């Protein structure tokens, strides 16, 4: 079970760590409150490079997240904020292959109240989806998504969001929703997962991050909180990755 509890990229170091942790988890416990040093499961900082996306996919997803979250006077864009790298790490881990979900058949079309009933995992949906987007655009505009102008990219994404793009076997609208959801996760999650670089989104909205103790400000009603954000890895300098 230990390995499915981890959703960050499993490096070699992480694997040897799991073995120690699960050996430490006694199965039968009596007469003691067990405690082992270093038995917890801290998240592992995200490393450089691509783990899931191939070069074409990486180009496409970087261009997409940069339109979903464009650079402007409020913040850096999705690409510089690390949203594509975040999605890459997520797809390479237990989120990508739905390791934690119920994936047994039979697969049937359900009612909207029954939730997602597809067989494809997020990793499969990205793989098929990004290829379908570029194939569609190459055919209609002789260009991949990343090669379009910003305006053309926005127009295409709006049509995709509205369900107006026929990507064949790929459901464009639900692909759009998946990418949007993961992009926002990356933009607002702790920087340790590769997105929200330099806590850019937290600074923008005024979220102090991982501080954990606000007792001195509870009754200071309607007054701005005076401190900037910290992340799990600490200050912006320490959390700067790749």
């Amino acid at each position: 079970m230990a390995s499915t509890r981890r959703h960050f990229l499993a490096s070699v170091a992480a694997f040897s760590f799991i073995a120690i942790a699960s050996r430490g988890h006694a199965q039968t416990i009596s007469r003691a409150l067990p405690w082992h040093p270093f038995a917890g499961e801290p998240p592992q900082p995200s490393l450089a490079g691509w783990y899931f996306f191939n070069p074409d996919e990486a180009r496409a997803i970087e261009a997409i997240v940069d339109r979903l979250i464009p650079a402007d006077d409020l913040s850096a864009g999705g690409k510089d904020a690390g949203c594509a790298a975040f999605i890459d790490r997520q797809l390479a881990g237990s989120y990508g292959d739905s390791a934690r979900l119920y994936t047994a058949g039979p697969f049937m079309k359900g009612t909207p109240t029954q939730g997602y009933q597809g067989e494809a995992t997020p990793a499969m949906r990205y793989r098929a989806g990004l290829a379908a987007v570029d194939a569609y655009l190459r055919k209609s505009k002789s260009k991949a998504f990343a090669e379009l102008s910003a305006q053309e990219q926005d127009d295409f994404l709006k049509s995709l969001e509205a369900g107006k793009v026929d990507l064949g076997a790929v459901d464009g609208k639900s692909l759009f929703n998946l990418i949007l959801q993961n992009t926002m996760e990356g933009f607002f999650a702790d920087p340790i997962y590769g997105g929200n670089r330099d806590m850019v989104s937290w600074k923008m909205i005024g979220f102090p991050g991982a501080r954990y103790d606000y007792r001195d400000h509870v009754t200071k009603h309607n007054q701005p909180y005076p401190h900037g954000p910290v992340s799990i890895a600490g200050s912006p300098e320490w959390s700067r990755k790749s």
Partner: protein
Amino acid sequence: MARKLPRKDVVIVGLGWTGAILAHELTDAGLDVVAIERGPWRDTATDFNIGYMQDELRYAVRKDLFLQPAQEAMTMRNNTSQTALPMRDYGSFLPGTGVGGAGVHWNGHTWRFWQSDFQTKSHLTQRYGEARLADLQVQDWGVTADEMESAYDRFEYLCGISGKAGNLGGKIQDGGNPFEDPRKRDYPLPPMQMTYGPTLFAQAAKSIGYHPFPTPAANLSKPYVNPLGISMGQCTMCGFCERFACANYSKSSAQTTILPVLMRKSNFEARCNSEVLHVNLDAAGKMAKGVVYIDQNGEELEQPADLVLLCAYGLHNARLMMLSKIGRIYDPQSGEGTVGRNYCYQTNAGIQLFFEDKNFNPFIASGACGQTMDDFNGDAFDHGPLDFVGGSGINCIPTNGRPIGTRPVPPGTPRWGSAWKKATKDHYLSSLGFSAQGSSYAARGNYLDLDPTYKDRYGRPLLRVTFDFPDNDIRMSHWVSDRMVEIAKAMKPKQYVEGRRNKSWNSVPYQSTHNTGGAIMGADPKTSAVNKYLQSWDVPNVFVIGASAFPQNAGKNPTGTVGALAFHAADAIRNQYLRNPGAALVQA
């Protein structure tokens, strides 16, 4: 064949809130107790680490601490004409796993139900006539608020609940909930310091004549030493409470209130990463012999015991009874059978307010720090001229400002691009929500049984949930939503947006992990699965403890009552059952 282990006096299935309470009580009575827990061992010092517990992606979005559907899923449908399909990811509710159960990652709103809740059927029939309940299957619990008072008191003092009494021995107290039943003493701790949003809500509610009061919270307003001698710390308002474990020893849970004492007892043993498959019955199906479980190495083991306690969370209790053939599974057509009967939920609605000139600092929050008003809860108000029964507590309890999940923007805002970004920034600090947590009354067609198609990883049928909100509850919720609009207007926001409750129940968006019924208590074995002491009518050495016992749900979070029922059952076992083990405490 399962390898047979040495006998124990008591085997407890699940080491969450109720399992820990029962284990503590019965080891104190000198019994040899083993608790078998499906998930891992977890404790504050090791697992709820202050260095990385505040991780929204891991714990709130990817749900690291919760039961994973790969381990055990459920199927759902809204009515019997549909085919149930598996909830491939849990959404609407999020069952717990591991030591501490769902008590690890709850909010801590800790309520008492009222006499009018315990006697839902007789009270409402007497006041409004039988016809008013025609479409419902509500029932009495078989206990009174008076009988439950000391059990509530023990759970509240175990936890160190922060609150203000509203009714001490019949005398209404300023600043408390005037609608509650009499309590013998005040809460162990004073209310939490109030944040800005709930303070404004309370002012507005008071200005229209309502009675807001600080929500009773299992987030501690002060350091506390509980009756077991365990120390807890003051809540730091960290804003990572619901879905997270507390790294400060400030949220009441098995970890912070019981385990440090329980785990040191020589007559207690916890077995983790071990999933109970079923209860073993004797050949006649009249007595339990123990349980069969699979440990983390995949070995099947039999644990014989004289007494079996199902403390696996309400939904899992019901499924384990079905898989073990304890009692008969409910049939909605004939109305016969009791296991799975009267599954209920919670009928919630919300409202979101957008201001221009306010800063709520939404990240300064805890799971239960806020204000509630019960003017429209239960039967606190006259339903005579209305067309429903039941009601809702109205709660302004902003629990967090975690930005993946909490960034309200007004309707019409694009979902991405620069305009989205600007709106997100403009409204993050200056919006506030409050909500109605409504009663959920039993209806004939809402029930639990075993799915005919989908199986778990051991090949056993999944639990099937068939549920939709009864018309009565929808009418109730809309009526309370109208009251919420009045309060919202009194708060003078720039804009407010309603989130009304409509059919059908959707398993995707989170609503609450307040699943009740399925093994309900009562006075009649034809319409209840357990007696008033939570003892199975069919197999008397099995007790079934949890919200599975609720005949229907009130407009309140369940765990105050679940904890009280755990003490109530423990008392019955210690003071009555052990004198004559194996005998029914109530004659059918």
